[in-house]
């Protein structure tokens, strides 16, 4: 039932991020008149990447601190952490269940957005094949996992809002650095969701995906370490 608690905490967040990104996607794609120059499409994809990075920041959690429902009350959240800790489950299970649920929600939101964009809007069908879109979805899911784990890591020792703030700021700093400094494109995770994505290259950016998965694994292990050693 830990997943149920996680779902009650995050269900409105899922709707919120889905609604915001869908709004942006529909707004942009409805007014596109194909064909567009590649530079314009790249710019659109960069903007989309920015929105997609919001998803892990908002949906991540570590399962020990109780999270508020989007804009709901914060009253009693800290105290309820002791109720969670008193349950006969290991801290690892609390972390893994909540982190796993948030990642599944992230994957689900990305899938739903891809489906809506494909079936309801004409523009993507002009430029893309269904398999391109599927490859893009898979790439984004894997590339976003590093940022998701970063948010989970912050959630192990920060409160709900502080975690969102810290993750959001750090991800934005990394995004700006990746644009300002010449990071090799083969390992640039942001680029793998934009210019180097399967939408343009029709192939998976394996190196970037590997880097992302590696970073996600390391950050998750760090989160696990914090949760297991921390005192409450």
């Amino acid at each position, binding site marked *: *039932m830990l997943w149920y608690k996680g779902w009650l905490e995050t269900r409105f967040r899922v709707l919120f991020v889905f609604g915001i990104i869908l709004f942006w996607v529909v707004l942009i794609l409805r007014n596109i008149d194909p064909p567009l120059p590649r530079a314009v499409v790249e710019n659109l994809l960069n903007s989309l990447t920015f929105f997609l990075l919001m998803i892990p920041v908002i949906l991540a959690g570590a399962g020990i601190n109780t999270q508020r429902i989007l804009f709901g009350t914060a009253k009693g959240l800290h105290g309820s952490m002791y109720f969670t800790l008193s349950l006969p489950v290991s801290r690892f299970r609390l972390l893994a269940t909540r982190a796993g649920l948030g990642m599944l929600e992230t994957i689900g939101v990305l899938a739903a957005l891809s489906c809506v964009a494909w079936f309801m809007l004409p523009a993507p069908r002009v430029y893309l094949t269904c398999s391109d879109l599927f490859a893009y979805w898979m790439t984004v899911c894997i590339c976003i996992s590093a940022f998701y784990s970063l948010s989970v890591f912050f959630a192990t020792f920060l409160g709900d809002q502080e975690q969102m703030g810290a993750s959001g700021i750090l991800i934005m700093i990394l995004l700006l650095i990746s644009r300002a400094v010449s990071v090799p494109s083969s390992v640039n995770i942001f680029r793998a969701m934009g210019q180097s994505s399967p939408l343009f290259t029709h192939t998976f950016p394996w190196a970037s995906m590997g880097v992302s998965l590696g970073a996600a694994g390391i950050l998750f292990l760090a989160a696990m370490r914090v949760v297991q050693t921390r005192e*409450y």
Partner: protein
Amino acid sequence: MADPVIETQELHKSFKGNEALSGLNLNVPAGSIFGFLGRNGAGKTTTIKLLMGFLKPDGGNARVFGLPATDADASVGIRRRVGFVAEEKDLYPYMTVQQIIRFTRSFFPKWRDDLGERYLRLFDLPVSRKISDLSKGMRSKLMLLLAISHGAELLILDEPTEGLDPVAVEDVLRELVALAAAEGTTIFFSSHQLEEVEQIADHVCIIDRGAAVVTGSLDDLKAQYQRLRIVLAEELRTPVDWVDGAEHVRQEGRTVEILARRNVDAILNQARALPGASVERFPVTLKEIFMEHARRN
């Protein structure tokens, strides 16, 4: 004496250089109702958090059901057998009463539906109301329901009656006693309400600055302590050097009051030897014992 359900030896814990526990030794017998007393900051909540595995000690050891509370795996096993009410009476604000009961039930295979329903009725809890809309008293009652209904062998309750009205306090205390009697559940609870502790506890521990200063069965403690009132023919001109055991001596005019802990008979003899002394002895209340230690420290 029954095997201890909770046992701590030389338990130490500091926070940023401040010593919260300084060698706490605790022995909670199985089936007892154990009152854990102390002033604010004495170390009660820290002890409870250590027993529940939320904190790790700096030294010493703590065992619950013979299992080390500091071991992560053993702690899961301990929590399966323990019903817990935290000092903060907070639960997930977004769940309804029904949802949190269903949620908690899923973790405890020995959940007792009969107890759950009984306490829902007794505490008059509205099942469809959100926890964020419950009063503090109702949240306290709900936490007690969750702690009791999972068939726990040990209840660890941190200020369980805090926020309850006097009628609800009586209901809760009566139910705790009934539970201990009917199910053999050990109840370890901290409280500032000395009358409550005296009403239901059969064992107590008074903790001060992280160490136990008084511990034992309440009956033994009451037998140990006596209050003596000596009325003299005339006011004493020079102070009396009372024998060891006269813990607190207060003189007002011709009347001397003594709280005696040991050597009560020797103190009585010493008092009777004073000119024109008439001596009465009274049983002491837990509050008097507590206040004596609070004053001394």
